[in-house]
């Protein structure tokens, strides 16, 4: 905000000490006021401590324990678990990031025009389209993913049409699908992720696009900017906060998702979320599962930091 600091300082607000003489009752009132924001924060902080800090600390401890269910687990600072977990499951890590990134890009490509349409062109249809965007949330997540299995079934119309148009030849040459099926392939998992998280992309995009004053477009027009230049120099930069928060809201949960890979995928599309689930529940290797969770957290934090730094919108976080 360079322009703000250039302004001459405004008249000083009265500072707490020494107080201006003629207002004696200000001081106690202000002291109470100082505590209020913290008191208001207390419920939220307590919530965070109980449901975020404590579980994270507990899992951190689990990740460096050794033992078995029979003999109990003890903290032995066995950090090798992290190395072992990473060397055993790095393909699933890479795959998760790859799938989540692809889904995020797809969401952006699909979501941006739609958000643009709702913000600038929808007119009286705006609310209806917004409801349609949110509507999938009214049905269960699992039900919607299972519905995709019916839609993409081997003998179904979608696969039949794609096959007839030779689209599947191309995708299977690229390794996205296998033979003449779509289900149980990487393509199905990425499409499932895209579908699941699309609203999380559209909503922040819409909010930031909607805030743009249409007169700016007129002004750009007046300054001889064509539609493409207007978009590139005015609309896109102004919508960057929406793009960044949309990509974060899509990428982060998509990386850890396991339902899509479980229901729409196969053995070679398992993501890191599946590994963590299996290690926790089936193999009962709690330390490895906890270590994997932390590695996932670290990976996401790194990716997000890089993303925010490069897109230059630190103010968001």
């Amino acid at each position, binding site marked *: 905000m360079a322009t703000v600091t250039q302004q001459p300082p*405004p008249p000083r607000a009265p500072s707490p000490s020494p107080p201006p003489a003629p207002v004696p009752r200000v001081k106690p009132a202000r002291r109470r*006021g100082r505590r209020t924001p913290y008191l208001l924060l207390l419920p939220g902080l307590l919530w965070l401590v109980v449901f975020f800090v404590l579980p994270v*600390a507990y899992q951190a401890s*689990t990740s460096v324990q050794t033992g*078995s269910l029979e003999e109990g687990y003890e903290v032995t600072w066995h950090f090798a678990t992290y190395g072992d977990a990473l060397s055993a499951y790095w393909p699933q890590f890479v795959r998760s990031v790859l799938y989540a990134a692809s889904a995020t890009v797809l969401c952006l490509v699909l979501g941006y025009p739609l958000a643009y349409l709702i913000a600038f062109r929808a007119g009286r249809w705006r609310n209806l389209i917004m409801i349609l965007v949110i509507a999938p949330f009214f049905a269960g997540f699992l039900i919607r993913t299972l519905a995709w299995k019916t839609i993409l079934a*081997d003998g179904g119309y979608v696969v039949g049409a794609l096959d007839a148009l030779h689209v599947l030849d191309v995708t299977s040459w690229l390794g996205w699908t296998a*033979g003449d099926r779509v289900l149980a392939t990487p393509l199905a998992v990425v499409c499932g992720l895209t579908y699941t998280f699309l609203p999380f992309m559209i909503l922040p995009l819409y909010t930031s696009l909607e805030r743009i004053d249409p007169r700016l477009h007129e002004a750009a027009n007046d300054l001889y900017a064509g539609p493409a230049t207007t978009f590139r120099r005015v609309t896109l930069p102004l919508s960057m906060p929406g793009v960044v928060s949309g990509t974060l809201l899509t990428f982060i949960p998509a990386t850890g998702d396991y339902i899509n890979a479980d229901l729409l995928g*196969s*053995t070679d599309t398992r993501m890191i979320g599946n590994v963590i689930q299996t290690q926790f529940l*089936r193999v009962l290797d709690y330390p490895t599962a906890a270590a994997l969770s932390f590695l996932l957290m670290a990976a996401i934090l790194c990716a997000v930091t890089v993303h925010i730094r490069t897109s230059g919108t630190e103010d968001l976080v």
Partner: protein
Amino acid sequence: MTTGPTDPRPPPKGTTRMEQYEPDRPSPTRAAAVRRGLRDGRAAPSRRSLLRAGAGGALAFGGLGALSACGIPPAGHTQGGVPAEDHSEKEKRVAFSNWTEYMDVDDSGRGHPTLDAFTGRTGIEVTYTEDINDNTEFFGKIKPQLAAGQDTGRDLVVLTDWLAARLIRLGWVQKLDPSHLPHAYANLSPQFRSPDWDPGRAYSYPWQGIAAVIAYNRKALDGVEVRTLSDLLDNPELKGRVGLLTEMRDTMGLVLLDMEKDPERFTADDYDAGIARLQKAVDKGQVRRFTGNDYTSDLSRGDFAACVAWAGDIVQLKADNPDIGFLIPDSGYMMSSDNLLIPNKARHKTNAERLIDYYFEPRPAAELAAHINFVCPVDGVRDELARIDEDAADDPLILPDKDMQAKSRAFRSLSAEEETACEAKFAKLTGA
């Protein structure tokens, strides 16, 4: 902001050149307000400082001392289970946790006739909850309470044999009192009498038997002949259209049988050979997915041409879709069971035992078998079942005949280390 004047001055000249345009620049009024807020210290703490404080707090909280105090106490010091005071006499109740769709229902879909009859006869109110969906998940749910020696709030649970074996091994279930179980003792089918994980049925009684067989969709097979598990794993015409179960013992048991190994007496080498055999099929892309209960929709839709399946499901699927069929490989099939267990500290042990015994009387057992179509573990129900449903009484998947019983095999019980190793190898095979 109650103090200080507002700042209505116009923006200074010369700062609004086009290149410097910033959309988020606050109005002078707002900027002044922000500065005032920052200076007199009354503004709420900024998000950044809060985040920093939060992170610091988290680090302090999860500090080294706290971390090392976490550990999980060993289980298994309570062989024989921990009884609670038995409130059966005073409280005529029993809390029964079961899997979904594992009980007879009346036409309204809400009542359970056999349970109602039990209450009518004994006056014991049954709190029936269908809160078990998955063995592993349910174990995760009750583990903290049982490990801490607390009441789970359940008097009777139904768990698959390997998990039942684990709970017995950990000492988390109570020994049954044979004097409360006369029918159960007399009518238990020989096939289920003495599993190696609970010799003589000291802790458990079977609820239903589950046969793992091979199922197929005739339409999806399209003339391909299937006789053994090898056909599923090797036939290139079935590539990507074969389903296997995530239940390690059922899938690996059938693989071992197919390799002419005995699942009741296999060695670690046999198991590894089985894993290698399966890995080859997975690498070829033969196996489409490893599934839980959700294989039924893949099979009836035809996405699976053939798969490993549970017999009880097949009886029901066949009724809905005539293309569905099943086959018993010559090498045999895997038989497991879901078992009734009384967790430690359950408050109504005697009531729970009476409920177990009740389901080993021929009549309720037949009603149950007619409704849920799994393998009935009770002897002498044929006449009762024929009275309700002639076809069910003749179905070898519900009442196995001599031939079927001879082909049935169980997976041997595993020690804790073996179990972890086997599950880890199998998990690796399924992709995670």
